């Protein structure tokens, strides 16, 4: 059993936004919704770093803890997904998420936000795999096709790693050993705790 995780190697990210574009393209994400964003820390200062941020598929997902309709579920592989048929668009998950991952497509009268949308690790959602309905609601299901999330596969510098946590950590450790310096795994401990 794998435990799917994301890791962004800040020393390699060149802020090209290729991951953002790949995500938008693969999932046909509507206007105004960004499942993935590139954030620059200490912008313009010496030692600035960029990282690619999306839903980290946390071990103990705070979004799932606060959801009043329990629309979240975690697969055995640790991918946090949600059911748009149950979501009421209350926005609690947005306040709970430390990464700002939940997105809402609509802003209407009386604060109606619409169904929440977020990164699915390109694993679609509940219901039949590879159907048009699944694509429309949740986007691509690349995992079912034996592929990695589009963002990670498209990353030109391989800064964004996705996959089994042990394997991803192993790749990152190898890199740090080779280039020296301190490991900087942004968001890793917040999302996955010690493991």
């Amino acid at each position: 059993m794998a435990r799917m995780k994301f890791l962004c190697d800040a020393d390699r990210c060149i802020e090209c936004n290729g991951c953002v574009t790949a995500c938008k393209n693969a999932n046909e994400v509507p206007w105004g919704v960004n499942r993935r964003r590139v954030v620059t820390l200490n912008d313009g200062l010496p030692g600035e770093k960029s990282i690619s941020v999306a839903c980290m598929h946390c071990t103990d997902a705070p979004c799932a803890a606060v959801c009043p309709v329990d629309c979240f579920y975690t697969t055995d592989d640790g991918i946090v997904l949600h059911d748009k048929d149950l979501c009421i668009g209350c926005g609690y998950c947005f306040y709970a998420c430390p990464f700002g991952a939940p997105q809402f497509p609509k802003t209407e009268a009386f604060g109606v936000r619409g169904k929440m949308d977020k990164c699915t690790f390109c694993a679609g959602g509940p219901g039949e795999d590879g159907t048009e309905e699944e694509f429309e609601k949740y986007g691509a299901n690349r995992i079912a096709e034996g592929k990695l999330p589009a963002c990670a596969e498209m990353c030109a510098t391989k800064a964004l790693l996705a996959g089994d946590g042990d394997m991803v950590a192993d790749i990152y450790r190898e890199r740090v050993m080779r280039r020296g310096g301190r490991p900087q795994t942004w968001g890793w401990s917040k999302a996955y705790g010690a493991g």
Partner: protein
Amino acid sequence: MRSRIPHILLLTAGALLLTACYESSDVTRHEPGVYKGEADPLAKKLENDGELREQLNQRFDGQRDR
């Protein structure tokens, strides 16, 4: 006889209006904190399909440096 008709109409209207106040006793009770939506076939596929798992592992490993 004439004076009874409005009474009957009033009673009928009242009875019809009150039917909307009916409350179903057949309520589904869900355990809090438990997902109750549709099942995800991908989860089962990942668990049982060795070929898919192997394919994914190859891709994971492909993220190493060239």
